């Protein structure tokens, strides 16, 4: 049986556009059907926006790529309608262990605060992640939602105009052209779109190599993230072990800068390294072996007129922290509702500039965190190594040093502090739900809170009387009344010490503004601010 990543899941089919007498113009073309392009397509189609997705391939991701999907990414896929499939297949974990030399120096629990629908993380091969997004996309197509996915369609030229974008697309049957009102470029870290438009991609290369081996074995290691600094089996370097579904284990061995990559990748060199780590008797097969170097960089701007960049095309981070796909999904989560409002003529074009503003802010946070992790894992000088080892030695004995250990600050959602879309705050309410924050989940009597949020503006009222619904300039606000008694977690997270609250929520489940009482004019003003009409 061929593996899922070897199966053409969206083989080339001739499209009507290739025989059209006149150039066909599409509202939205998405370049790239990786996790981010697929996420964007599903989100827009669910909002009724017709999308064409073109990919130069016709299969899911190949090789060792993302495995850790964070809680926020799962919540986004819940909104996209495929969270359950991912979580059912994924390996759940929330414990991380840190080893130094031969000793386990401490372990940590990623989500000590219970009462969330989704776990802190699941591990799942990127090819499964993409497969489940593709199934969801097929499901939407079957419901008649307007998604046109075109395999073996490679964008080979792009032209930017004031009111549209032109695309030339190569196919096995030759090239054709289409026009688009809007283009979302999700064509990965080497983004041909970026290159064809002559745009920058600036940042830092980390002078280090990592051997990544996805290994199939029956083993009784627990479902935890194990990270070693300077272990006996990889002296002077780091190592990582992580479980994926189907008994596949991700092993990540730091090699250093001056290595012969060809040589290191040969099975006769890889196998002894893995045996040193897993034990002489370990029985395993190699699914994939590769050597990576990592970079942290981003485009200066993610919006260039009618071309919007998302995912790795816009920013790239080292994998320590699992921020690549996780942050890319936050891009399209941020973009889809804004684009839909602008396309519907309900919000000004400038709302899309806030996509750039908010997600550049998010990318900088991710780049900062990944750069710091990489600096801890690979000390850049003798002194930085001395401090790194001092932190590890102290961490074994004294809890104070544990927060300083940085083996990857695992992806958490970005709070858009300072965003121009943020409205008023009520400082009596808990600080981690201030405007710009992602909604925190909480159990309710009949569902989870996040299952009731998203895809539209909503007014969440707790202990406050609000009207049945509001509307301004064609944009509706749905009323959501939830009693504080639904769960202690809900009351604690949304009220803190306060007795009542009103939250204006964005379609991407972020807080737009909040108050401790209801004032219609204030809510309408905040809606205008949150939609760029302030």
């Amino acid at each position: 049986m061929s593996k899922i990543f070897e199966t053409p899941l969206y083989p080339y089919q001739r499209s009507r556009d290739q025989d059209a007498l006149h150039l066909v113009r599409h509202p939205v073309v998405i370049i790239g059907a990786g996790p981010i392009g697929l996420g964007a397509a599903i989100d827009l189609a669910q909002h009724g926006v017709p999308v064409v997705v073109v990919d130069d391939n016709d299969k899911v991701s190949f090789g060792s790529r993302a495995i850790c999907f964070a809680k926020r990414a799962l919540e986004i896929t819940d909104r996209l309608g495929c969270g359950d499939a991912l979580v059912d297949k994924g390996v759940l974990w929330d414990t991380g262990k840190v080893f130094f030399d031969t000793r386990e120096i401490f372990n940590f629990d990623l989500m000590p605060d219970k009462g969330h629908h989704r776990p802190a993380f699941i591990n799942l091969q990127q090819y499964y992640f993409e497969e489940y997004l593709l199934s969801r996309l097929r499901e939407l197509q079957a419901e008649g939602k307007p998604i046109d996915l075109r395999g073996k369609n490679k964008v080979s030229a792009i032209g930017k105009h004031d009111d549209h974008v032109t695309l030339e697309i190569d196919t096995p049957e030759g090239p054709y052209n289409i026009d688009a009102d809007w283009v979302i470029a999700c064509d990965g870290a080497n983004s041909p779109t970026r290159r064809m438009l002559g745009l920058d991609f600036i940042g830092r290369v980390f002078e280090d190599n990592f051997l990544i081996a996805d290994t199939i074995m029956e083993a009784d290691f627990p479902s935890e993230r194990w990270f070693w600094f300077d272990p006996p089996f990889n002296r002077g370097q780091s190592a990582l072990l992580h479980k994926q579904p189907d008994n596949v284990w991700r092993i990540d061995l730091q090699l250093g800068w001056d290595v012969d990559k060809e040589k290191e990748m040969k099975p006769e060199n890889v196998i002894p390294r893995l045996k040193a780590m897993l034990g002489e008797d370990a029985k395993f097969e190699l699914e994939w072996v590769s050597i990576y170097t990592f970079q942290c960089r981003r485009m200066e701007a993610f919006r260039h007129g009618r071309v919007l960049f998302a995912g790795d095309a816009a920013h790239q981070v080292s994998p320590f922290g699992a921020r690549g796909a996780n942050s890319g999904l936050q891009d399209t989560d941020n973009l889809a509702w804004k684009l839909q409002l602008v396309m519907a003529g309900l919000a000004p074009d400038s709302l899309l500039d806030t996509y750039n503003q908010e997600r550049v802010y998010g990318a900088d946070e991710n780049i900062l965190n990944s750069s710091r992790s990489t600096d801890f894992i690979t000390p850049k000088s003798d002194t930085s190594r001395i401090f790194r080892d001092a932190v590890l030695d102290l961490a074994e004995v004294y809890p104070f040093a544990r927060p300083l250990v940085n083996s990857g600050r695992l992806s958490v959602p970005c709070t858009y502090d300072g965003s121009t879309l943020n409205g008023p705050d009520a400082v009596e309410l808990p600080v981690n739900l201030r405007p710009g924050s992602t909604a925190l989940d909480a159990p309710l009597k009949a569902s989870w809170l996040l299952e009731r949020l998203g895809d539209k503006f909503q007014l969440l009222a707790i202990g406050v009387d609000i009207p049945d619904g509001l509307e301004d300039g064609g944009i509706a606000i749905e009323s959501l009344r939830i009693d504080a008694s639904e769960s202690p977690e809900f009351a604690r997270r949304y009220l803190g010490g306060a007795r009542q609250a009103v939250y204006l929520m964005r379609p991407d489940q972020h807080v737009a503004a909040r108050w401790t009482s209801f004032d219609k004019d204030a809510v309408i003003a905040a809606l205008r601010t949150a939609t760029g009409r302030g």
Partner: protein
Amino acid sequence: MTLNTTPNIAGADDFYAELLALHEGRSKAESDAINARLILLLANHIGDRLVLSDAMQKAVSAGRG
């Protein structure tokens, strides 16, 4: 709180002797490691980020010229 730069250690000579004794007979690598651990322990005790930043800056500037 601000960084205290006036004399604050009772028995200054004894403290200094104790500090040197820590490093006696040790290799450079051992001493470097002890110093690093000591800085981290003390920094955590102080905790106040402004005081720590001030101390770091003064440690650099006092060495100039």
